[in-house]
């Protein structure tokens, strides 16, 4: 089956000529291996025995009561994946592909460090060298993940340009790829980038939606009324949404970073950006009138990105998904509520989805059970969230 290069007008391959051949090669490899029994069984065994799939579906009874969600609040527990987030679903699938393509070296960008850790993990597993680009600001706020990547044998390369966040790390990873394209596979961490990446990442993450649809039916005998996920580049969101796109009665809600609020800095590309090209694809983008890409802001490094995956832009335009946002402050308070009422410390990214469930409960409740993609756990965030919330380790 051929790989999708465009979603409506969005997507494409706006990259230097040097990597076009590699994108062609990747497209062909993916077309072939996505149906190859050998590849699929190796990936399937690892997803089962290494990642811990299928991840459970859990009913968050105390939060559902506190937030007044009568028909039930369900968490798809991607936080229980090995390495602590959904990112490993994509990293493993792509590392197995890279091995079959004969690549000797893996590179990745990372914001929150979860994709970096997942890629370092998958590279260690198959014995490939790995370099991860990470903005200097993110290395500070996601310090623990930097140490994890290094323990896993990856080289973490600081990026100082721009604001030292995910956008800058992605640009630098692409430049490395342009330079070392013959030997290197670039594992992009979200459903962004030039085609075929957005489709490959969405496909590898769609396991989240496929599993949770079946689990909802098994547990409740019905489909959820709404599905809520946070959106950085949009990989966990597209992963879970793909399970429900054809279920017209299921409302799909993506939650972007509202940052400092309406008058401040944020990462809400779909709400406040306009279409443009960043990192190889045409999609909604925060930019100035001249097309200079704006700096995003979010308390969560994983949502601190001025772009978004092209499929989300299309889903926005056709009205299939509604995109809302949650501020830093709302996410931090939801982070604490979830920790204290469910004993689940969520990632700050995930906390944005939870904040919307709480603050938008009135609308969501009316539609039936609410399913949230609990995309990751918050161990990585204890320094930063602790500082913001005034929680520390002093006696």
């Amino acid at each position, binding site marked *: 089956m051929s790989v999708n290069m465009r979603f409506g007008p969005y997507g494409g391959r706006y990259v230097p000529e040097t990597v076009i051949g590699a994108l062609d090669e990747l497209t062909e490899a993916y077309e072939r291996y996505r149906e190859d029994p050998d590849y699929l069984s190796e990936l399937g065994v690892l997803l089962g025995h290494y990642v811990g799939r299928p991840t459970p579906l859990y009913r968050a009874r105390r939060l559902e009561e506190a937030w007044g969600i009568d028909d039930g609040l369900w968490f798809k527990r991607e936080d229980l994946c090995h390495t602590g987030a959904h990112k490993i679903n994509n990293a493993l699938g792509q590392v197995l592909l890279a091995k079959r393509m004969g690549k000797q070296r893996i590179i990745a960008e990372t914001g929150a460090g979860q994709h970096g850790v997942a890629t370092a993990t998958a590279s260690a597993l198959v014995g490939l060298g790995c370099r991860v680009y990470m903005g200097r600001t993110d290395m500070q706020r996601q310090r623990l993940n930097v140490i994890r990547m290094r323990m896993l044998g990856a080289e973490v390369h600081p990026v100082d340009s721009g604001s030292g966040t995910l956008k800058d790390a992605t640009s630098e990873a*692409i430049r490395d790829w342009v*330079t070392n394209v013959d030997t290197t596979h670039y594992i992009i961490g979200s459903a962004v980038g030039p085609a075929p990446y957005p489709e490959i990442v969405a496909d590898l993450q769609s396991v989240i939606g496929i599993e949770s649809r079946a689990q909802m039916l098994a547990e409740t005998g019905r489909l959820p009324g709404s599905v809520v996920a946070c959106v950085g580049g949009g990989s966990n969101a597209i992963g879970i949404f793909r399970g429900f796109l054809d279920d017209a009665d299921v409302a799909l809600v993506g939650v972007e970073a509202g940052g400092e609020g309406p008058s401040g800095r944020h990462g809400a590309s779909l709400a406040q950006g306009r279409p443009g090209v960043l990192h190889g694809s045409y999609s909604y983008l925060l930019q100035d009138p001249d*097309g200079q890409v704006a700096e995003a802001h979010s308390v969560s490094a994983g949502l601190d990105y001025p772009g978004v995956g092209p499929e989300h832009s299309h889903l926005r335009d056709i009205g299939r998904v509604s995109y809302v946002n949650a501020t830093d402050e709302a996410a931090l308070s939801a982070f604490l509520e979830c920790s204290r009422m469910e004993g689940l410390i969520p990632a700050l990214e995930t906390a944005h989805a939870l904040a919307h469930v709480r603050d938008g409960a009135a609308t969501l409740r009316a539609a039936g059970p609410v399913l949230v993609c609990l995309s990751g756990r918050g161990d990585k965030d204890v320094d930063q969230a602790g500082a913001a919330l005034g929680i520390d380790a002093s006696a």
Partner: protein
Amino acid sequence: MPESGAERLEQVFRDAGGPLFVPYVMGGYPDIDASRRHAQILAKHADIIELGIPFSDPLADGPTIQAAGQAALDAGTRPSDVLDIAGELRDGPPVVVMTYFNTVIAQGAREFLGAAADKGVAGIIIPDLPVDEAAEVRDAARAAGVALIALAAPTTDDARMAEIGESAEGFVYLVAVTGVTGGEMTMDDRLRALVDRARRHIPVPVVVGFGVRTPDQAEQIGELADGVVIASEIIRRIRDAPDADSADAAVDDFGAGVAGALRP
């Protein structure tokens, strides 16, 4: 009907009788006035001027051009400021602007290219717009009379070279290294074979750039190709000059040196 940009560029290649010198100036670096002066100085030595419009996220550029572009943006440089510089170079060698795709579509390709044509711009290079994505911009460029200059790379296979050649106008920019700007090329069999391959598949002149630093290297490339682009090295000389006058002098010296090496 005035001559189109493609016709003006082709004329320059026909008249030169030797390899062309195509120096790059980042518009707005270190400031608008200085970049205008540098372009005017280089115009005395150059056959074509490549004028950069800074972009926030230049994927094909190494640290030197990135930093210069960021400095230009920090100083408030806008695309229209750079096009104004092009307008002032109208009586000199043809100007080709270099910028990234988002800068073009932010205004709308038609508007952007129309504005460039009004300033006498002969061509445009968009390094993140590969040939398969270029149809719409190519139409807008043709309508405006601006040549869309395609890029080819060491990783471009023969079939794709031919595809690039088919729609090429003005010249094709052949990237000498697998990588971003600012590295260093070496004249070896691999590069000779690449230029040879490009010339076989591409009917318009082939100009080589990326990683060319010295007059010697320019001369070596000039033996094989129709022209040579030098960018990062010029920016380095401006960056390392102690003051504006020495920067002007460094640009003049370097331009004279390369021009001399190309046509002794």
